[in-house]
């Protein structure tokens, strides 16, 4: 009686060892690091860059302690912040504007732990300082913009099919096309159904009202909204890169909200300025007069032109003189996709909206045999992507830019053109700035309050319940480790309410142990033998523990579902803590008690 089979002991040992391993990364602290990430979508972070920055740092006299490369950035780890600052300056100077160089903290987790997947918990902004924005996407504007585009496309579609139409009216939530008679209504409806499979097409055939109305179906409306949010998230990512922020968080929250968290940033005004900025495409004409170009290179740029560089396939750039006047902007772009041109060269295929299409038709009509430049404007600076010669008038709103680019550049350019502008305007609905010193203090306070509370409880348990109390205290420590390990493994972001939840969970977790210990005492009082008391004590307490924990878990889950921000952080810890406390109180502490008492033949009393 009261002996666990070997596998149960092994299971306890394995879980405890795993818990220790995954709790460990939290103890190593962090080292200063320099993070280098791409500031433009056309510039990639790769192995070559890694070699280059290590080289720069080494040449400056500071070899990094470790180099970490991931998809978007290279991080160099250093011993102290002094070195970090010097290296940052050196790298920034050497790399120029194509990369953003930021100061960062990198966990000091040993390599073997990292290989096992060990990582410390991420800290929330309230614990490390920084700016938090909650942005709301203006959905009405997104829908309205999309309806405007639809109206233009309807016009083009009907013209292509040679269907005569009257007024095309863009109403509040629909586009209405006036038509002449029943026959054209049918033709138009058929054509539009084919052209706009996502929209609901409703024909009306009254004696004095022949028309077709296009409206968004609920499904396409939901799609439109989710696309708008996704595009805005991508755009924000591109923009935040410019700030050189280490580990920014940009996430969709709920249906139409986006959370932006910039750790370490204190200057909210600058952050807001950059979040609101647009990267876009401009089409301008090229001044091909060689004498003008020579003059410009000599420092004498003609008034109505600007000297820019034309990025070649090998990253070499040639000077090019473009006119100041912007013919077309990225606002008129509906879509951009990577493609191949007739020669099989990588290209970007762009679809313009109706007004863009007609401007472009006019532009190409008027300037046959001249060159036009496609300029990508990022960070307030333009870069010529390609400058093709116009062979003939281009109608239909489909444009291909093919110049010198690799397949990857084509993909990135397409992404940038799509993501360059926001799908819908956004408003800041929430903004928080937490000073870095406050963050440190919060960690300290949270840690201290948990520690003192924990110590007080553990000491009390050991005095009050003796051996059973010691087993409870050990189970409680195990519980703390299970909890921390699970939180680290799941990558839950720790916030101040999260720390509060850890403390509260520990306080509540002792309940299961108290229930068990009290039950064992009671059984003894009722005259049971010590072995029977252990057996019955655990068995009887279990029903209570299960019921009380499940009800608590119900509350925790509701918090998790409906909470956001602070409440959610609290709920995560609370829910996980309930599960781990049941495991440790029922299983781990029983294992200990079994080990202590289970192998004694003659047991006359229990130390409880």
């Amino acid at each position, binding site marked *: 009686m009261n002996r666990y089979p070997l596998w149960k002991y092994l299971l306890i040992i394995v879980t405890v060892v795993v818990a220790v391993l995954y709790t460990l990364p939290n103890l190593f602290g962090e080292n200063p690091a320099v993070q280098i990430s791409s500031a433009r979508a056309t510039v990639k972070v790769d192995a070559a860059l890694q070699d280059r920055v290590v080289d720069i740092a080494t040449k400056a006299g500071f070899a990094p302690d470790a180099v970490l490369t991931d998809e978007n950035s290279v991080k160099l780890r250093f011993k102290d912040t002094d070195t970090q600052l010097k290296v940052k300056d050196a790298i920034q100077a050497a790399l120029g504007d194509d990369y953003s160089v930021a100061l960062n903290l990198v966990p000091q987790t040993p390599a073997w732990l990292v290989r096992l997947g060990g990582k410390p918990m991420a800290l929330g902004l*309230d614990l490390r300082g920084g700016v938090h924005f909650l942005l*709301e996407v203006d959905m009405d504007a997104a829908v309205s913009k999309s309806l405007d585009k639809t109206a233009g496309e309807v016009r083009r579609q009907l013209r292509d099919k040679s269907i005569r139409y009257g007024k095309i009216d863009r109403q509040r939530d629909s586009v209405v096309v006036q038509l002449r008679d029943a026959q054209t209504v049918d033709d138009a409806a058929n054509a539009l159904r084919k052209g706009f499979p996502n929209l609901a097409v409703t024909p009306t055939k009254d004696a004095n009202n022949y028309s077709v109305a296009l409206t968004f179906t609920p499904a396409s409306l939901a799609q439109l909204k989710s696309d708008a949010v996704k595009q805005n998230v991508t755009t924000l990512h591109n923009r935040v890169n410019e700030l050189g922020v280490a580990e920014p968080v940009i996430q969709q929250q709920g249906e139409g909200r986006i959370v932006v968290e910039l750790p370490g940033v204190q200057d*909210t*005004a600058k952050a*807001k300025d950059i979040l609101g900025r647009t990267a876009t495409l401009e089409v301008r004409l090229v001044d091909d007069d060689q004498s003008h170009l020579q003059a410009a290179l000599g420092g004498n740029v003609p008034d109505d032109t600007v000297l820019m560089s034309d990025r070649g396939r090998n990253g070499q750039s040639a000077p090019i003189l473009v006119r100041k006047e912007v013919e077309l902007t990225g606002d008129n772009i509906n879509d951009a996709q990577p493609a191949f041109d007739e020669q099989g060269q990588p290209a970007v295929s762009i679809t313009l909206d109706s007004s863009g299409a007609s401007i472009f038709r006019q532009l190409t009509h008027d300037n046959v045999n001249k060159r036009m430049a496609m300029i990508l404007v990022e960070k307030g600076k333009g870069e010529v992507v390609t400058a093709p010669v116009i062979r003939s008038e281009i109608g239909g709103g489909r444009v291909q830019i093919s110049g010198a680019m690799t397949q990857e550049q084509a993909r990135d350019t397409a992404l940038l053109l799509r993501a360059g502008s926001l799908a819908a305007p956004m408003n800041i*609905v*929430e*903004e*928080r*700035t937490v*000073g870095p010193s*406050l963050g440190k203090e*919060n960690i300290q*306070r*949270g840690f*201290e*309050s*948990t520690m*003192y*509370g924990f110590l*007080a*409880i553990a000491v*009390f*348990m050991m*005095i*009050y319940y003796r051996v059973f109390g010691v087993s409870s205290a050990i189970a409680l420590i195990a519980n703390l480790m299970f909890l921390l390990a699970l939180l680290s493994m799941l990558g839950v972001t720790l916030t*101040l*309410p999260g720390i*509060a939840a850890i*403390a*509260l969970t*520990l*306080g*509540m977790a*002792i*309940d299961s142990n*108290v*229930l068990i210990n*009290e039950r064992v005492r009671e059984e003894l009082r009722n005259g049971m033998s010590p072995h029977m008391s252990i057996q019955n004590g655990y068995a*009887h307490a279990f*029903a*209570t523990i299960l*019921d*009380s*924990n499940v*009800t*608590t*878990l*119900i*509350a925790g*889950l*509701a*918090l998790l*579902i*409906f909470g*956001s921000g*602070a*409440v959610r952080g*609290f709920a995560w810890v*609370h829910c996980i803590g309930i599960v781990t406390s049941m495991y440790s109180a029922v299983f781990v502490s029983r294992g200990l008690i079994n080990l202590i008492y289970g192998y004694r033949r003659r047991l006359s009393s229990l130390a409880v």
Partner: protein
Amino acid sequence: MEFFHVKRDIPFMSYGKITTAISLVTFLLAVFFLVHKGLNLGVEFTGGTVVELQYSQSVDLNQVRTKVDALKYGDAQVQALGTTRDVMVRLPNIKGKTSAQLSNDVLDTLKLDRPDVQIRKVEFIGPSVGDELVSHGLTAITLVCLGIIAYLSIRFEWRFAISAIIANMHDVIIILGFFAFFQWEFTLTVLAAVLAVLGYSVNESVVVFDRIRENFRKPNMRGRDVPQIIDNAITATMSRTIITHGSTEVMVLSMLIFGGPALHGFATALTIGILFGIYSSVLVASPLLLMFGVTRENMIKPVKVKQEAVV
């Protein structure tokens, strides 16, 4: 060592009338203060800007208040945050002014007077977010209640479920009543604490209910009537009740003492929740159970549950 070993059952149920009367009074008082004074809702709910400042030396609050009032930003509040060096300034939303501008204005004005001031934290919440929080909070509370009722109805019986939930709401309303009476700030973390109390307090009731259920099934309890069975259950679980709540309260007190202003509201709400949680599970939920007319037959019927209890 044993502190709370009571030999004879304490006749809690015979005090039932008095205790329910007392709790009814506290409950009504809480409701009165909630209606009359209302909650001092934090910036997360109302929208607005909160600036937390720290001086390197202690500062005269009135001086700060005069300075901030001179900016004429509507109904501004200036409060001390625990120490005489930490100050919190709360401003309502102003059209055409961003929070960055607001906080900078405040900082600039105060700097003229005392250059040793620095910003620790700025929070701006738009007006639309708050309404959503309120509706989400209410949904969460409703869902928790429904979930608990459903679970307890399955594991016990509907009478237990209803008694537990009434006792639970009693605790929540009383916490809110305290916050209304003292006009403590009701923030998002306090809401989290209130919701945690929902789980915590029902936990307490369940432990007592569990004993009641067990007692009904015990052969040697056959001769006792229902109030005696409940008295026995409460007495038997009393020492556990005190120790568990004591431990949790030690943790919460530790938060209250060492946790700083950020955890203050959270710990306060939990403290009240724990105190009333004990009281309500013993002296509200159980008399209610009696009032709803629980009988031995209610608990004995389902054969399946009986088997579980024997295991």
